[in-house]
């Protein structure tokens, strides 16, 4: 996936949330501006996919309404981790390296694991 396209999609999702909340009267202009400023600061290009995955979970730290845009990113990331780990573990099991496969699966459950795709 193109990291820049992924970054822009995330920004567009956030814009959709801002628009919806403003229309419903659930957000004022000052908060919309604060969100926009924060997004511009944090999602400043160029970013790699890894960087986007690291930054995304912090976007709703102060703006809970952004969770709707952030959760899919986190979910995508988890799926990616699962896929890579599973494939790697399968290969190890098939080659008889059971202990090594178990170790990798254990690590995958820990936070902060780096996945090279």
């Amino acid at each position, binding site marked *: 996936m193109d990291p820049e396209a992924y970054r822009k999609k995330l*920004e567009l999702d956030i*814009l959709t949330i801002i628009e919806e909340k403003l229309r419903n009267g659930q957000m*004022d202009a000052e908060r919309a*501006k604060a969100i926009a400023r924060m997004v511009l600061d944090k999602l400043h290009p160029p970013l790699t996919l890894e960087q986007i995955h690291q930054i995304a979970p912090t976007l709703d730290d102060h703006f809970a309404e952004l969770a709707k845009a952030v959760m899919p990113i986190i979910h995508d990331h988890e799926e990616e981790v699962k896929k890579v780990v599973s494939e790697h573990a399968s290969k190890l099991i098939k080659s008889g390296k059971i202990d090594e496969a178990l170790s990798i699966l254990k690590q995958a459950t820990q936070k902060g694991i780096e996945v090279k795709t």
Partner: protein
Amino acid sequence: MEITAGIKPTLENTGSESPKGHIKARTEKPDTYPERAPVSDGVSWETIDKSKYHPPYFVDNRVLANDRTKDPKNKKLWADPEDISLLEDKKFLSYEGEVRLDEKGRPLNPRGPTGIEGRGELGRWGANKAADPIVFRTNEDGFMEMITIKRKDTGEWAIPGGMVDEGERVTATLKRELGEETSANLDFEDAQPIYQGYVDDPRNTDNAWMETDAFYLYLPEGTKTNLQAGDDASDSKWMVLNEESVNSLYASHADLVQRAIRSWQEKTGFVVDKEGNIKKSAEGEIVSQITEARANGNNSNPDDVLEEIVSSGAEILSASEPTIESSSEQLQSYLVTEAKSALGQPTFNTRNELMGKAVGLESSLLAAKSIGKPEVADKLRGVFTQAAEESGKTFAGAFDETGKKMEDKNGEYDTAMKAAGEVALQHLPDALKVAGINVDIQKVLRDATFNDVLRVTAKELGQPEPVGIDPDQVRQTLHSMVPNNEYGVEHIDTMPFDENTPLSEQEQKALDVAVRLANATWKVGQVHRAAWEGNDGRINPDVREVFNPFDLLKKTQFDRVIQEGRQPQEALTRVGFEIYKDVAQLKPLVAQPQPGPAR
């Protein structure tokens, strides 16, 4: 000087946030008045040189003719007796608080001398209570308008207000006055209060002044209101509210109208631009930007839309940044507004950026004024703002994400307060450089004595330069005034004194700048705390003093000590001690003295 009990303001928009303090009452007058005796800006009853202040006495013949004691049964008579001893009720109440009396028992204008004694055209001794109805509507062309009358006495356009009759409810006065002056028949029971307090009015004198209750009413679309001038008005009309028309209104009415507009904007989300156009709300503008971007499909860049959102917002009628000419009240109002606005920011750093900017501007303007170099204000602003922001960052650990000070982080807060002096000292050489003050600041701070601090303080407060200072007497005075648990109380017994070798004029200016910079660096932490402690969007009265500009803070403290019955010299000593605390913060940080002759 006697003090009588006063009533306290009930709205937040009072006191130091009141419409432009005390300017028109010193510099303008109705044609019937004699020339006012000159009164400089900032002069109070305590600081005025009474041997040189000889204001003319004036009371208008209409006031004398309407003395209600001449015929107590005649309810149309509206003036107090000229002989103040005949007044039945001598409790002079004011929204400003306590009212002082002069040696003749006459109430004294709480904002200070005006250059005219007596009551002028005002009927009552002391506060003359008025009510001001501000009535808005949107006209067919989309412009915001308000009902105005042309005053017969000055020919100026004004709010159609009037005096509150004895025992009359304010909402009844609003309805009555509007009816009498414009023939409009409107009900004010649901009107919004926007101001209650002193009015800087050209009719004010040393012994009589205007105070008002101002309300606004926004008429629903299609409300028919025909206007016909009557009573004190030679004309009445719906006036389009633009920058020019608002600023040309009578007395302090421009301030009242701007307050009403701001209140209406906050309630409705609409904004009024400088030409009086009512625009879509800021929220609506942002939605339009996003919708437009979506319509452009792949051609739109979300970064551009986000940038537009950040920079969006119509320019509304609001207080602009203060300048070197701004009064202490205007500076304080600016600081309050900026601090409250900063609370809307998502992170401590972005909040701090705004608060540092506000504190930096306020402090640098006062510093430039104090050293007599208004032309360096802009350059000083850069240095002061940088120092305030930098110092403000050190307070980050003491506040949570909403801006609230965490009570279990007092240690972090105190550490940051102490570190503020270091930040100030780092930026001090730059401040002196842009101010064109060429002295050895390390030496100045090292050598500065309490005598020097008192000299600088006396100059700022308009007090005579203190001579013959007795250190023991000073310590004794301070111990009798400063609570034992007050921050910095330990300095009382360790302060250096030296009567014979004062700092030079340049060195005194350098000391002044140093103190102001030190004050700005720790003030930003206090502003963070006080801003959050605001109650329901207003500033908590208990912490309001934090927002006082440095000079106003000193003057307030000086006046307070005088009100306690102390002598000016003692009040000066008390204020000087507060200033010395800033010097004491810097002293341990300067380099040790080089071997050489003692000063």
